């Protein structure tokens, strides 16, 4: 029941390796796929190395599918999914699952809503029963809506209103995007959270939680034939739903830097910058990953060395470039030293980026980035949970689950010239948005 953390250092999904080691890290030949008559996609991968299973349900809906006035409904609705359906009533979902030794959670992003259960493999039937029950016949009551509304407001107070990063991030996205729904926060505006009605939720469920808008990924100790039959039996007769409407794409070109200031009683200044970047399935996505690592992942990255270690203007520097369905945002976040000059720090950040855009990076820097990305991919694919999530994320964001196993090939194809080119094209000063935190005197 989490909104995604926007503070990741490395994008979670996929990773890479030196050309020689570009062998597949994930054997996807064994993935069994099927689409039910109602449109539900199923992908199964048997791996008996541990007697556990991870079961992911991805719905192709996130804040990008929302409208002003009901922003945050994707996330609020995610909470509602735990409040009872026809066969398993209120409070039963987690009770039944926990009594079988399982654990469940979910998250909502700009693009997707994903639910998972991790459990001992002998609980598979119970999990399928629980998940299909709520996809078929979720029960939405006024009482549970009011309760979850309060919970979500607390979540918003936690992550946004009382968080320096949260306050700044909300400003940044609204600067980077003028027209696209990425301009509002995943958790929604407080006023909209207050306003969402049960009828809104019911309409939302009919459209976005229909089987044709969903996919299931089960990875672990399972028998593919029996599991496929089990899923067919439980989900096969859930009626298909209407096709979701299109997402507005008319983002106008940016013709100059955009800025915002957040004044807050903080003890130290901070700087957040963002550039509109290509969609995740762009051929440049891998080069942007490499750029991110060259600039800000690890102590020997350019920005950590220059801003944190040498000039000491910053306490930390992080970049995040999360792959999205539509053109997303490449972000730099700098926590400044309390007495550092914000202008000087900003100038240094722009200078370092410009150096990469004009002179590029070395082959050694690219090799280092590939090595780190490869380890990151291996870490992700080390668990059933990680593999199931990688498959789902690849299909939801890139349109093909097979991409989960291809990241190393993509990284191997990135060279220094690609890195320089994407730095020049994407991190263009006239297309950046900047949010500065100005500490106010106070506590």
């Amino acid at each position, binding site marked *: 029941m989490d909104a995604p953390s926007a503070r990741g250092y490395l994008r979670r999904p996929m990773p890479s390796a030196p050309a020689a080691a570009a062998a597949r890290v994930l054997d996807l030949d064994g993935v069994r796929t099927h689409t039910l008559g109602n449109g539900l996609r199923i992908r199964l991968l048997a791996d008996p190395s541990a007697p556990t299973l991870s079961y992911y349900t991805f719905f192709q809906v996130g804040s990008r599918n929302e409208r002003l006035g009901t922003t945050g409904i994707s996330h609020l609705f995610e909470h509602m999914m735990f409040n009872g359906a026809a066969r398993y009533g209120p409070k039963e979902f987690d009770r039944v699952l926990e009594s079988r030794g399982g654990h469940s959670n979910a998250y909502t992003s700009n693009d997707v809503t994903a639910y998972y259960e991790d459990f*001992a493999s002998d609980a598979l039937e119970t999990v399928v029963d629980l998940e299909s029950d709520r996809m078929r016949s979720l029960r939405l009551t006024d009482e549970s809506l009011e309760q979850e509304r309060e919970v979500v407001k607390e979540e918003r107070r936690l992550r946004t209103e009382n968080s320096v990063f949260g306050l700044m991030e909300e400003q940044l996205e609204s600067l980077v995007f003028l027209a696209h729904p990425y301009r509002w926060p995943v958790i929604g505006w407080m006023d909209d959270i207050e306003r969402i009605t049960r009828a809104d939720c019911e309409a939302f469920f009919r459209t976005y939680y229909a089987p044709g808008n969903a996919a299931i990924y089960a990875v672990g100790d399972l028998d593919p034939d029996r599991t496929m039959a089990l899923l067919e039996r439980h989900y096969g007769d859930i009626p298909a739903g209407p096709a979701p409407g299109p997402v507005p794409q008319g983002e106008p070109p940016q013709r100059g830097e955009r800025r915002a200031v957040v004044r807050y009683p903080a003890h130290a200044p901070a700087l957040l910058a963002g550039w509109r970047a290509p969609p995740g399935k762009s051929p440049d996505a891998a080069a942007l990953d490499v750029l991110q690592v060259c600039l800000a992942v690890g102590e020997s990255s350019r920005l950590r060395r220059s801003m944190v270690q040498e000039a000491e203007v910053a306490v930390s520097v992080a970049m995040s470039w999360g792959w999205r369905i539509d053109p997303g945002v490449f972000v730099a976040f700098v*926590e400044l030293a309390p007495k550092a000059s914000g202008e000087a720090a900003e100038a240094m950040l722009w200078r370092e980026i410009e150096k990469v855009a004009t002179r590029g990076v070395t082959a050694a820097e690219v090799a280092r980035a590939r090595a780190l990305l*490869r380890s990151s991919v291996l870490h992700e694919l080390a668990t059933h949970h990680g593999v199931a999530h990688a498959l789902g994320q690849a299909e939801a964001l890139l349109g093909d689950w097979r991409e989960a196993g291809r990241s190393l090939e993509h990284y191997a194809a990135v060279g220094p010239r690609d890195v320089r080119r994407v730095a020049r094209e994407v991190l263009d000063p006239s297309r950046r948005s900047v949010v500065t935190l100005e500490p106010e005197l106070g506590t």
Partner: protein
Amino acid sequence: MSAAKAGGSAPIPLPPIHRERLPNGLSVIVAERPGVPLAAGRLVLRGGSSLDPPGRSGLAHLVALAARRGTRRRTGPEIDLFVESLGAELGAGVDEDATYFGLSAPVEVLPRCVDVLADVSSAPIFPAAEVQRLRRREVAALAHDLDEPGVVADRAMLAAAYRDHPYAHSPEGRSADLERVRRLDVAGFHARHYRPSDAVLVVVGKVSAAEALRVVRRRFGAWAGPEGGTPPLPPPPPMEPAVVVVDKPDVTQTQVRIASPGFARGSPDYFRGIVASALLGGGFTSRLMEAIRVNRGLSYGVRSRFAASGAGGIYVVSTFTKVETTADIVQVTLDEAARFRDGGPTEEELERTRSYLCGLFPLSLETHDQLAEKLADLALYGLPDAEITDFRDRVRAVTAEECREAAARYFPLARRVVVAVGPAKRIAKALERFGPVKVVPARKVV
């Protein structure tokens, strides 16, 4: 699949584990494990932030960070570049009981990374410029911590619960203390406390144990530390009830911590404690989650845990709520703790919670890093591997009566501290019902 078997009842298997003690006293543990071609290394030295001298809180933490900023063979930036170019990560840190160096590396470069690990832990030279720079960065980072209400709450809770015991400060220390730290303090701490005879090195991954042990012997064998051993810590003093408000005038949500006396890591109450804690504030179906989130919508989250350290421990409930309902959430928590003590868990609740804990436990050992951390902790606290393999039996053996006893002994009933980080003007008065309120400015905490 009978109900009794639900959630897994089989013993937890461990991969083949090889142990060796080097002539210099270093304990080495190697676990050979299939899976992704990565390896985890973890060096644990007994003694962490509780060894910080008076007026020098944060020193042990700074020593661990500074150790990787230069050796006779490599400068700090060279170490960074070397490790990262191999696709590896080398981290360092401390908690109240120990100092940690963590390594995560592609298995094929493990020997080269172990070499660096040995170098930074046993032979750092602490270049003055690097030490001073790190010290400045740590002080600056504390200013950012001050803007995180949850971090402020955790720190204030340790101070209120442990008072003048060495566990009372967070490993990162206080700004005023760090400002005073000099290079000599750092080098002296290392010379006094980093000793192989009080350390354990764990390696887990797709490695050959023979090969890994050979590399470790070669790289760590020559490490000579100071004589003697890490001094034992006295147990914490009895907890003094307190209500502390850390004033943050501008927040719209109060961070709440409620702490009561707990137990040391080696306590025989450990298993009944974790079951009782899971029942009160564990998963999504715990008593507190239901009372606070599901029934009242007071918070997004609430959690309880035993923070069990070497010389003692505390039991902590962590939550947060909008400023207006600060006293309510404390009251509900205390009421639920009392209700649990009086009635204990139902059989259904107990069975569900035991299954939940038993089912989840293998997932907490899934990655090489997780298993390395677990094995290192067991070694640090002198606990047997059976704590892993017999985990399910031990959890399943916990009875409702034992949970009730654990609640009576440890839950926040009579002796407790309540910490609230929020606008004092708006919350202090309402909190007076829990005891005399002491208001402190946030700056005093960091």
